[in-house]
């Protein structure tokens, strides 16, 4: 027999397979492509700021699907079923975040070293960027879920989520980019990033489920 959490996870993954999962990676590629047009084709400069470009691109790309994360469930009524399901809403939201990250975040992590080659950041830094994104993008997904839950049912929710979430994402960006710098000494920034991710993994589902419960009409 399937558990409610497994059902939420497999349903969201099946829906993500239906289409739109590659769109985030394409957007990421477009950000990486546009930056040299703005800065100039100087490879030495691009290599120096490469990790920052990759992080900004991934940060912006991870915002893309957030407006549909809970809004679609609100529209077709499955959010009401989740309220009634025999499992805590927090864990169901966590399952949704996990499915969202697997569908949109993980492709960004896998694509980052590839795009790193285009910016000439070198193999070691590329691996570090991918590692930092692997740790950091779940934190961004958890923060994003809070924004998505707060804007459920709003007509202008799509633009509002980034405005609410991006100031809160500053610590993830700071430590994410710092973790990519090999010269900066060891794994300390990556550890802090992992700590942030664990903290947001608690805060995100709890706050999002709380908002969903309070705003249920």
């Amino acid at each position: 027999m399937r558990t409610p959490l497994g059902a939420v996870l497999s349903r969201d993954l099946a829906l993500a397979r239906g289409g739109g999962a590659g769109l985030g990676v394409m957007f990421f590629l477009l950000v990486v492509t546009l930056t040299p047009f703005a800065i100039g084709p100087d490879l030495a400069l691009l290599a120096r700021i490469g990790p920052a470009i990759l992080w900004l691109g991934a940060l912006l790309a991870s915002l893309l699907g957030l407006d549909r994360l809970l809004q679609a469930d609100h529209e077709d009524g499955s959010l009401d079923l989740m309220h009634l399901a025999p499992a805590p809403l927090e864990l169901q939201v966590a399952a949704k975040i996990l499915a969202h990250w697997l569908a949109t975040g993980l492709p960004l992590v896998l694509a980052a070293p590839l795009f790193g080659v285009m910016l000439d950041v070198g193999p070691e830094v590329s691996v570090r960027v991918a590692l930092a994104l692997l740790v950091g993008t779940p934190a961004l997904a958890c923060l994003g879920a809070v924004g998505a839950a707060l804007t459920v049912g709003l007509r202008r929710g799509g633009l509002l989520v980034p405005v609410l979430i991006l100031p809160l994402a500053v610590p993830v960006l700071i430590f994410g980019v710092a973790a990519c710098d090999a010269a900066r000494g060891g794994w300390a920034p990556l550890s802090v990033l992992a700590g942030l991710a664990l903290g947001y993994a608690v805060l995100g589902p709890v706050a999002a489920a709380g908002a969903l419960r309070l705003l249920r009409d």
Partner: protein
Amino acid sequence: MALLSSITALANPARFSAFATRVLPWLAAATAAMLALGLYLGLVVAPADYQQGETVRIMFLHVPSAWLGMMGYTIMAVASLGVLIWRHPLADVAAKAAAPLGAAFTFLALATGSLWGKPMWGTYWVWDARLTSFLILFLMYLGLMALRSAIEEPSRAAKACAVLTLVGSVNIPIIKFSVDWWNTLHQPASVTRMGKPAMDPTILWPLLANALAFTLLFVVLHLAAMRTELIRRRLRTLRITAAASAAFAPEPAE
């Protein structure tokens, strides 16, 4: 005990409105007097700094504004607890009224800071840790106000803003810490910072007077904004009742 019961009595919106109406003229007069005294002490009496010259007087506006910018968010966080835990009728009114005030004082702190930065640092803006944290605080105020204006129904807006305020208040120490860390990494002591010298009494007293005056100003504006918000909500209820009774006149009320 009598004091406590007289404070809890103000939880009633109508009683609070009456109280605010009675108190506001006195508080406004006190604010005007205190502001005049503070500005006189700061702009005329206090000596110019031997190093910074007359520009040090910007501090008398800058520091109180920064304090109140942070106090505004603290008030909102406490009020949000009141919204979510006690469902207090006035808590959301207080939170809503504090947001634009806090944003305004944060902006004032940023603006006076950058005007002060031009003669001191040679540029209007440096990515100093304090400036950057304040900029993020300002952006969070704007986000809260945007969320509030996007939700039409006041009770839903109250809950959503309360959740966001609390998530933000959990994040503020993390943001502050990471921005400090980021700044020390990128900017090794190039900015001449006003360390913490023992402040001379000739500067300290005008600063405290101004801090008191600005806090009074905040309280007056907050009380007035809360009273206005209560009237606005009452007006909204009256309009809805009037529209409902006009549209469904033959039907009995629910």
